[in-house]
């Protein structure tokens, strides 16, 4: 893809991590000779992201997601391979590059703790050399979109976690970045706040045509925002494609939920009964058998209603990681 906003080819990052046994003896030995272990955090990943695309970057803790985002935003040097964002090599941290990206991390505080966020916004204006009229327009727009009108006048330390996250986002986007790296932006937030942030990300992307790369452990974030997902585990990409195709690739079954006229019926001969709630029975059946089992159920049982679904995305992701761990 020639016009890719993010281009990654055979990207690797290794860390030398100190390693020693517990106890005084090992600590004393360490004074003379240190043992280190090479850890491959990212191990030869490749992908491209097109302008305006929003991609979910999924993986368990330690999979290499944050390390990748840090390489793409210029915080870390790559060990080998190629990474380009907006045509720049991120680790060079050129001013023109840094003015066009933002890395928002759910657990990071960049605002002045003791001052109202408005003062930090003003500081960002001068750092990013934002023309004042654009600054005021962007600030007011972001404040309105995230509904933080009164909060930006309070000292940051007096804000709740969710409120702080919202003003952090305002501060990070004042310079209107074209590429957003969002690392767990909804972590620790309540459901309402998560939803607000999700709506905001969608709105921001639509208004500014921004390209977004998002990591989250909340599948609701991914389902609401991302058409495409990249699944990473042990530093390697396991899947890169449409979210909908994830279950087709990894889940070998579908679920059939049937509302029975006679709830007491034993349906175990049709598939694995995974849930039963009164007259409502949920079966797990092999994907290839779905049509046949459905036809049999309708023909042989008194079925009032029937619904065939892919398994929940959380279950699919769990399955992907479980399969990879076993292999």
């Amino acid at each position: 893809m020639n016009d890719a906003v993010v281009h990654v080819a055979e990207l690797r990052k290794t860390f030398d991590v100190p390693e020693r046994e517990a106890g005084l003896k090992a600590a004393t030995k360490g004074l003379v000779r240190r043992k280190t272990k090479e850890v491959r955090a990212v191990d030869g990943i490749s992908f491209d992201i097109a302008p305006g695309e929003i991609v979910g970057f999924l993986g368990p803790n330690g999979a290499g997601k944050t390390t990748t985002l840090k390489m793409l935003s210029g915080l870390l040097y790559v060990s080998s391979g190629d990474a380009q964002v907006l045509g720049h090599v991120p680790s060079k941290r050129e001013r023109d590059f840094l003015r066009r990206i933002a890395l928002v991390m759910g657990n990071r505080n960049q605002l002045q703790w003791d001052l109202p966020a408005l003062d930090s916004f003003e500081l960002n204006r001068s750092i990013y050399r934002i023309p004042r009229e654009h600054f005021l327009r962007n600030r007011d727009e972001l404040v309105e979109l995230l509904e933080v009108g009164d909060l930006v006048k309070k000292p940051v330390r007096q804000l709740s976690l969710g409120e702080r996250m919202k003003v952090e986002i305002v501060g990070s986007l004042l310079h209107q970045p074209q590429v957003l790296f969002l690392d767990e932006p909804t972590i620790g937030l309540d459901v309402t706040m998560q939803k607000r942030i999700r709506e905001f990300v969608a709105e921001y992307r639509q208004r500014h045509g921004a390209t977004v790369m998002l990591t989250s452990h909340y599948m609701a974030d991914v389902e609401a925002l991302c058409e495409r997902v990249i699944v990473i585990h042990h530093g390697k990409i396991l899947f890169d494609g449409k979210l909908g195709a994830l279950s087709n690739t990894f889940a070998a079954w579908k679920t059939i939920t049937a509302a029975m006229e006679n709830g007491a019926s034993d349906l175990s001969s049709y598939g694995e009964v995974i849930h039963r709630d009164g007259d409502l029975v949920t079966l797990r059946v092999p994907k290839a058998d779905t049509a046949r089992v459905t036809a049999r159920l309708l023909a042989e049982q008194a079925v009032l209603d029937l619904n065939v679904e892919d398994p929940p995305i959380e279950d699919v992701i769990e399955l992907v990681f479980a399969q990879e761990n076993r292999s």
Partner: protein
Amino acid sequence: MSTLPLAKEGRLRSLADFYLTTIRTAIQQQFQYRAATYMYLVGMVAEPVIYLVVWSTIADQSGGTVGGLTAGEFAAYYIVWTLVRTMNIVFTPYGWEERIREGELSGQLLRPLHPIHYDLAWFAGGKVPWVLFYLPIAVVLTLVFNPTFDVRPLEIAVFAVAVWGAYLIRTFYQSALGLVTFWTTRVGALFQLYITLELLLSGRLVPLTLMPEWVQTAAWFLPFRWTFYFPIQALVDDLSNEQLLGGLAMQALWTLIGIGLFSLVWRYAIRRYTAVGN
């Protein structure tokens, strides 16, 4: 994708805007902690007052002078010392250590401006309330200890520049030291060594004229004397115009060497950043 235009001002004017904005923010931050600022000043004043009482007492008991300095000259030295000390406070290697170890540097690396600009501007702003609070204390110390001052306008002008020169020198050397954290994680021991050398070779502990000859000679070849002794001398001693301007030139030289050293270490150090924590 829409790109924001840059502010119309050129790079230098934008940088000046950044410095002014950061200085303003730092002053506001300091005013949030009034009690802490007062306590900090008490601590700052205690150190020179102790030196002052000790040396004044010794001078009185030694027939009026020690190493050629009278009690009044000691008083002048340490009253100006406190002002210089307040002005040359910088972001320390401990700060760099924490910033690197905890991953706080990440936020600053994401900005299109080198973090050293932020440190320079922030600590410059922090001085404004400290100096304002110190001035009435200086008046009280003057009334109590009766210092000997004979100041020319050029000396005041050189002093005003020299305190900022001292600030720049300390910033670049201590920041270069702080970057050692990229290799060792804990830079405290090295910093202690630096502070010990500074105490002895800068005039921070005692006026350099009271130190042995070889210490005074060594001090000429190191940056430390230009961060304490020279600014104090500019106001307290009777330096010739050549000595005053020569001192500023030496400060400029050590600042340039400091910038070069910091830039060199930064170039290699930043490749080792692991951005842990954040």
